[in-house]
């Protein structure tokens, strides 16, 4: 069995040995890994750990190793969005969250694999090849933060950061049997997160337990003047770690159990809701009528924003550059050779959706649908405290099973994307197994009410044993 160590366990180990030894043991494990979760490790990790041992750096995460998704900028450590087009790009600045982590004493182990530019649900579209699911190496770890979830599940890092544009933290958390949080839009500064779809995405933590999610949030959340969409709001997340759901009102959107849902997933989720009832919560079915339009709205908005965000990758200033007789040819060749198929597909579709004559029919309409989806959430969350449903309609699928069928891949995001359209927070926690693969329970809360979903998730964890199962050691 893989060994999982949470932050308190890490701190104990550091007390018994040293931060350097703890980091070294993780680096050793990463060195032997065959799941392709890390795309590169940081050559200064041990140095940082030594400094912690020397007392040069203190903080709530002193000596705690962490894995970072490859789209979060790290000074001196290549950040490529797992794309060929950013090969060789080393950011000259830290993302806001990275600065926070460094200040808190965390030791960055390296960068984790992802779908190229976070565009995917399986981590198969990475320039570095697919990451394997530690529970079954024939299966995908989910995506797009597949590497960040897989390395935590495989015991190669105690905690990690991912980003969630349409489910990219929650999906791999569910598929890999770990905990993942998508915070409220504006909760964490996006400064330094390489944009895929700015109006939808948030950085989010992944961990083996809810307490570690709260510990990470206490470090990385908060206002940053460099991100105009970040909100100035004080909160203590660890205070929410209470085993108490007495009187909690749960809404269960019937639309989240739609066509194509896996029976095992359905059962695990209903069992979980039953468990909450046992623990003193109440639940009722609730309707979110615009859920069926959310996917279309999400993909049009995300692709439109992406088509513009990715325009800067032209080989002129950084990263990969192809040959060409003049600038236009060079830029065109760079993009043709540097982007993978899925990225090109989304740039083309996004460009199309924003084009004159189609703009109103697609982009504007998608914005209107987005408003309706938001209203669904406002209405539902005025009746109940949280919403619950399956994070993913199925357990992790086989590698190669869907990669050639983009539409079926997009459909897998059906329960996660509405949350991003609405900007509300959502956490995925392990709630059972189907076909031997982990199932995730999604708990959605009100804007900036992370504490209620953290409390609900924590209580569930305290009263169930799903999170105690471990994948077998992959060799």
């Amino acid at each position, binding site marked *: 069995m893989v060994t999982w160590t949470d932050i308190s366990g890490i701190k104990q180990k550091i007390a018994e040995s040293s931060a350097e030894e703890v980091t070294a043991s993780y680096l050793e494990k990463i060195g032997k890994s065959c799941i392709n979760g890390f795309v590169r490790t940081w050559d200064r990790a041990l140095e940082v750990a030594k400094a912690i041992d020397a007392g040069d750096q203190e903080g709530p995460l002193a000596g705690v190793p962490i894995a970072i998704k490859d789209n979060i900028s790290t000074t001196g450590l290549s950040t490529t969005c797992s794309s060929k087009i950013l090969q060789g*790009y080393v950011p000259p600045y830290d993302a806001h969250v990275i600065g926070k982590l460094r200040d808190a004493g965390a030791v960055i182990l390296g960068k984790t694999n992802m779908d190229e530019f976070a565009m995917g649900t399986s981590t198969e579209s990475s320039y570095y090849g697919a990451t394997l699911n530690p529970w079954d190496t024939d299966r995908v770890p989910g995506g797009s933060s597949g590497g960040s979830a897989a390395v935590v599940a495989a015991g190669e890092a105690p905690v990690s950061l991912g980003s969630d544009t349409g489910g990219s933290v929650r999906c791999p958390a569910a598929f890999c049997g770990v905990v993942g949080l998508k915070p409220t839009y504006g909760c964490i500064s996006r*400064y330094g997160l390489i944009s895929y779809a700015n109006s939808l995405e948030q950085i989010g933590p992944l961990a083996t337990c809810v307490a570690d999610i709260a510990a990470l949030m206490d470090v990385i959340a908060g206002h940053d003047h460099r991100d*105009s969409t970040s909100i100035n709001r004080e909160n203590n997340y660890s205070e929410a770690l209470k085993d108490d759901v007495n009187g909690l009102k749960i809404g269960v959107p019937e639309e989240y159990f739609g066509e194509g849902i896996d029976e095992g997933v359905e059962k695990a989720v209903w069992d979980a809701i039953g468990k909450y009832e046992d623990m003193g919560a109440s639940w009722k079915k609730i309707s979110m009528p615009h859920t069926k339009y959310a996917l279309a709205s999400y993909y049009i908005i995300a692709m439109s924003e992406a088509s*513009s965000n990715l*325009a800067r990758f032209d080989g*002129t*200033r950084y990263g990969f550059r192809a040959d060409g007789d003049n*600038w236009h040819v060079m830029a065109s060749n760079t993009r043709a050779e540097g982007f993978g198929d899925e990225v090109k597909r989304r740039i083309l579709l996004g460009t199309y959706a*924003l084009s004159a004559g189609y703009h109103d029919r697609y982009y504007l309409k998608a914005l209107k649908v987005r408003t309706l989806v938001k209203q669904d959430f406002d209405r539902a969350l005025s009746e109940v405290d949280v919403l619950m449903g399956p994070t993913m309609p199925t357990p992790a699928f086989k590698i190669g099973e869907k990669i050639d069928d983009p539409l079926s891949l997009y459909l897998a995001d059906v329960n996660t994307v509405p949350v991003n359209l609405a900007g509300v927070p959502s956490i995925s926690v392990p709630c059972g197994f189907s076909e031997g693969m982990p199932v995730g329970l999604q708990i959605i809360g009100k804007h900036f009410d992370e504490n209620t979903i953290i409390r609900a998730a924590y209580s569930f964890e305290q009263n169930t044993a799903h999170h105690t199962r471990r994948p077998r050691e992959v060799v």
Partner: protein
Amino acid sequence: MVYENPDGVKIGLEVHVQLNKLKTKLFCGCSTDYHNDEPNTHVCPVCLGLPGSLPVINERAVEFAIRIGLALSCEIVEQTQFHRKNYYYPDLPKGFQTTQYDYPIASKGKVIIEGEDGERVIRITRAHMEEDPGRLQHIGTIEKSKGTLINYNRSGMTLIEIVSEPDMRSPKEARRYLDKLRSILDYLDVFNGDLEGAMRVDANVSVFGGERVEIKNISSFKGAERALLYEIMRQKNHVRRGGEIVMETRHFDEARGVTISMRTKEAEHDYRYFPEPDLVPLRVAERAPEIQKALPELPDARRERFLRQYEMSNMHARALTNEIKVADFYEDVAGKVNPKDAAVWVADILRGELNYRDLGIDAFAAKDIVTIIELVTENRITEQSGVEVIRTILDHGGKPQDIVKDKGLLKVEDDIVAKAVKEAIAENPEAVTDYLGGKEKSLNFVVGKVMQKTKGRADAREVRERLVKDLNDQS
């Protein structure tokens, strides 16, 4: 007399004004003081468009924009929003320009100019904020360039684009409009028009109610006038030969003084505008009253005041108020000498000498012109000598008093004494008669009168000798 506008000329202008008096750029903290520095030394992740960087609005830039809007008698929008204008060009580091689209910060204003037939109102369509791109520099000539270098120091500078209605009927009116705009902006203290690229002009022009043609690449006001003259001639000739004017964009070749069709489908460019998701909408209307209150006196108001307060001619008032520096200079001088004399000396003489040398008013010290005016009005030097002193200062430097001495311009001192002696003799016939009658002492009285007239500057013994000589000659 009414201007007939025989060719039905309609000219509209789009003027880009770089607000280089802001200390920092539009969306980042980089200094705007780059004009004398090495390329790419005033850059950061934001203005280089590095992956993951985010814009943050410069509040002072918003204030400047409102100030400009108000000075152009515009309405200030309730809430403004930035959009992305998507197109590829190497000087554009993000692959889009952040600009204002359907919610420009200011609209529906006017500028009053001296038109072909008296005062004329030029309507302002809109004034919006946007970021400046970087600058391309070709190695060698553009035809035989070995490569192109990009300097991003300019990237992210704040621009205000001021768009007029096609209300100008001749290149002369266009020139007057540009001069007036520059004058207003100078008064607002928002930019230094002398810095390279501070004001850039695009023009559109049509004749006989035909299609309008855009002219780009105009780098000076003189250039604008020349480009328009050429283009109107070209269109008229074309129509006379039975041709039809097509809507197109033409490039102004400054060296040859001609416009050249760019043969690109510029008009069909699809910029795929959409709201910038990284910047939140900005409420601005409520800031306008405060800013309105603090607006400085503008050229038209100052001209009116000069007419009233200093009783000068309309022509002088106009000449002295066009440039704020000249107006300040004049008021400085007018506080020390007769304002009417000051108007003649500053508006006619000094400005003429400065124009001839292509110098600004800064090239001359107010205290020097005060000295010169005093010397002239006290009859110590002639007006011609006064002009000579100005020329000498401008060409060789020096102090007025020294120049007067060195050049012997004060020779006229003799004339003053001679004149005073003649006057004293004519005005005091009794004393003269007494002296001639043998009363030697009566001469002292006349000497005293001369001394009074020359304000004591004359030498008493010299005066006595001259008196004796004159009286002897007379008798």
